[in-house]
């Protein structure tokens, strides 16, 4: 493998590459050789590194010799019976194809032509090379925290949110009124509930029964809705309940008769008579 020998002979320690790059290729140590694959970020990276060794402008590079170097390198690593990353083998196969195509006369080449493929490879290498260089220049700038420093102990800017409370005079005294009203003595709180007592119902029905001997509906004994104060439904319900109990009481004491023709039928009432 004379090519490999040439390659290694050409390799020089490369100051701006991190250790683990091609620099250690100079060691003629086969075991180390394969390990170095880890030092490249993939086949394109390895190709770029090899291309740089040609010490010419990337645009003037000989793709053919680059391909040879790559294949040489991979073959050598392969000869060590070490597993190679698939990416490198795929690239090797493609480059082998490219090489054979490049060696063919142009008219026998398939589309796309080998020259075109080679040119594309070259363009890719130029782009990667440009970015690698840009990264190095970027990192070499005056970086904050390395070459330039910010204020070590800035006071810091703070925005305090202060609440401005709002309350007006009327809200204040109304609140006091509500407190007083809420906690006023119990007599103020417990109001007369709108009811008709049993006594007044008894009195009312007894008085009305004296008027006629006809059957009358229980409801007819209630105060009319039109009578002042009797419009409230709660009060009317209470009057109905009290009047019913009063009617039962009158029936029990033999002063009245009760009749209902069926469930939910009107309750009828009349004076017992002789």
């Amino acid at each position: 493998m004379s090519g490999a020998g040439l390659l290694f002979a050409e390799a020089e320690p490369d100051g701006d590459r991190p250790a683990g790059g091609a620099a250690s290729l100079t060691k003629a140590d086969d075991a180390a050789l394969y390990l170095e694959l880890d030092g490249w970020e993939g086949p394109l990276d390895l190709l770029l590194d090899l291309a740089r060794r040609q010490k010419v402008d990337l645009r003037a590079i000989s793709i053919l010799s680059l391909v040879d170097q790559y294949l040489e390198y991979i073959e050598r690593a392969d000869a060590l019976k070490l597993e190679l990353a698939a990416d490198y083998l795929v690239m090797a196969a493609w480059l082998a194809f490219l090489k054979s195509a490049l060696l063919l006369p142009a008219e026998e080449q398939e589309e796309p032509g080998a020259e075109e493929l080679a040119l594309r490879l070259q363009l890719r290498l130029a782009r990667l090379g440009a970015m690698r260089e840009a990264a190095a220049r970027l990192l070499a700038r005056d970086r904050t925290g390395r070459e330039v420093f910010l204020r070590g102990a800035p006071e810091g800017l703070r925005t305090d949110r202060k609440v401005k409370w709002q309350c007006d005079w009327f809200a204040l005294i109304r609140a006091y009124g509500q407190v007083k009203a809420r906690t006023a003595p119990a007599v103020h709180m417990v109001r007369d509930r709108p009811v008709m007592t049993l006594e007044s119902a008894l009195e009312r029905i007894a008085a009305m029964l004296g008027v006629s001997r006809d059957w009358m509906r229980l409801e007819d004994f209630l105060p009319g809705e039109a009578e002042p104060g009797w419009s409230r439904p709660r009060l009317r319900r209470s009057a109905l309940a009290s009047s019913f109990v009063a009617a039962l009481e009158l029936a029990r004491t033999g002063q009245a008769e009760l009749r209902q023709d069926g469930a939910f039928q009107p309750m009828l009432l009349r004076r017992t008579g002789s």
Partner: protein
Amino acid sequence: MPAEEGDPLVRAVEATLFAAEEPLTIAALCAHLGDADAADIRVAIDDLVAFYCGRGVELVRRGAAWHFQTAPDLAHLLRREREQVRRLSRAATEVLAIVAYHEPVSRAEIESIRGVQTAKGTLDVLMEAGWVRAAGRRDAPGRPVIYATTQAFLAHFGLESRRDLPGIGELRSAGLLDPVDDAFDALADPKQSGEAAGPE
């Protein structure tokens, strides 16, 4: 234009003090700047002090050490206050009213007047607003803190003194003492609604 623009030691001291995380003594500056002489550093510091005098930033001495700080008269720039207007909650308004009518008054008394427990935060809000202050302790078992209103309270509510607060009689005639239930009924039943137009 700064006269000493070029002096390398002044620049070095300036940058070092700027980047330092704590005030630096002359000795610390010497050590940091390698072979610099303490007397030279002292001169450089005097230079810088004079230079920054009257600017937005000053070089000041703290004990034996030096550091940059914002000019004291600009301290307000570092703490900006942004006001946010908020209405007092109903509970806080009630407590404020009770303090105003009954002061000085303890928290237990406030609670017994309100008939509800009063959260500590409610009084805090009133004190933060500057309307209520702690006014000593009552000479009673437990020596409870008692509260009173402040001058700011009178000013905010446009009162000359607490005597300007309407009396119970006035509150009643304004309908403000009607039980809350009645007021509710009045709202529900328009016929009964003696309009409870408050003052104002």
